[in-house]
């Protein structure tokens, strides 16, 4: 099954959130998911330490020299591999992209995120040329406002579309439930069962967003 790499040389754009949302939703859909944590901040390992959902396996602490073999070991029929990369421009990023079926570049709707995120898009294009194969890639806007689409976001979406870059819709909305996933582990469904965490409405809206986003990713894997 496919190898999905979540990459951006900028930190704090929502790479780990994006990886956890996909992992938990694909697992809920019935896939066996392996998440590979390459981020020195160990966000995924911290999340997993508080409880992994069924069907999700974590491979922690994967560095530059182990990434290719870690992907190779995890890849196989019936499995989806999701790689959460570090938020820097490193060899680890270029190695992971070389082994990917789909690269997702999360970007907050800000000029700075767009500028730094575009370095990942440029790297993918260069690798496509060097390796002689197409590497499917898409941008997802993250931490967007649920109620209002800002002018900057509209402009960014237009610029990306004009540049021929695939933009995943829906974006990942800035929801407290996504942040709380890292505090409580598991998935949004297990959080919904615990009424002490947040209001069910907030989690429900996050789940609708997560499902629609993961469906959009699934469409790009076929």
């Amino acid at each position: 099954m496919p190898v999905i790499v979540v990459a951006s040389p900028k930190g704090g754009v929502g790479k780990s959130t994006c990886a956890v949302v996909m992992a938990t939703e694909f697992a809920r859909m019935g896939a066996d998911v392996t998440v590979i944590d390459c981020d020195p901040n160990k966000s995924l390992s911290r999340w997993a330490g508080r409880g992994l959902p069924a069907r999700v396996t974590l491979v922690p602490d994967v560095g530059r020299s182990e990434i290719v073999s870690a992907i190779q070991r995890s890849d196989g029929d019936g499995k989806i591999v999701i790689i959460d990369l570090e938020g820097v421009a490193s060899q680890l990023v270029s190695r992971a992209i070389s082994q990917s079926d789909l690269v997702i570049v999360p970007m907050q709707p800000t000029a700075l995120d767009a500028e730094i995120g575009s370095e990942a898009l440029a790297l993918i294009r260069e690798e496509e040329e060097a390796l002689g194969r197409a590497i499917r890639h898409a941008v997802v806007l993250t931490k967007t406002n649920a109620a209002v689409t800002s002018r900057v976001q509209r402009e960014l979406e237009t610029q990306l579309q004009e540049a021929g870059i695939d933009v995943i819709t829906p974006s990942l909305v800035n929801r407290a439930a996504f942040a709380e996933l890292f505090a409580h582990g598991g998935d949004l469904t297990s959080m919904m069962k615990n009424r002490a965490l947040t209001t069910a409405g907030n989690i429900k809206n996050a789940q609708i967003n997560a499902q629609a986003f993961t469906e959009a990713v699934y469409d790009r894997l076929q």
Partner: protein
Amino acid sequence: MTDSNRLAGLKARPKDTSAATVSKAVEVGEKMGFVDRSPRRKPGRRPGPATAQLHPRIKLEIADAISDEAAERNMTHGQFSELMWNAWKESR
């Protein structure tokens, strides 16, 4: 169609994991600033094999005597302690 049926349609795609392919990707990345940022080893002398330190509280005159004896034998206090330990073990 159920979710699991849909996912069953997604098959593993073969990847070129050869050193040549990975090197090409690394080379392209390095030109764009995606360089090796794995943590470097700390500079300086490597630590020696593990040793332990004892901090026994003993009477001053005994401490002075041990210190003088070690100095006379051109030994550290640790080396002299080991020597004494071995001598005591042999004497048992």
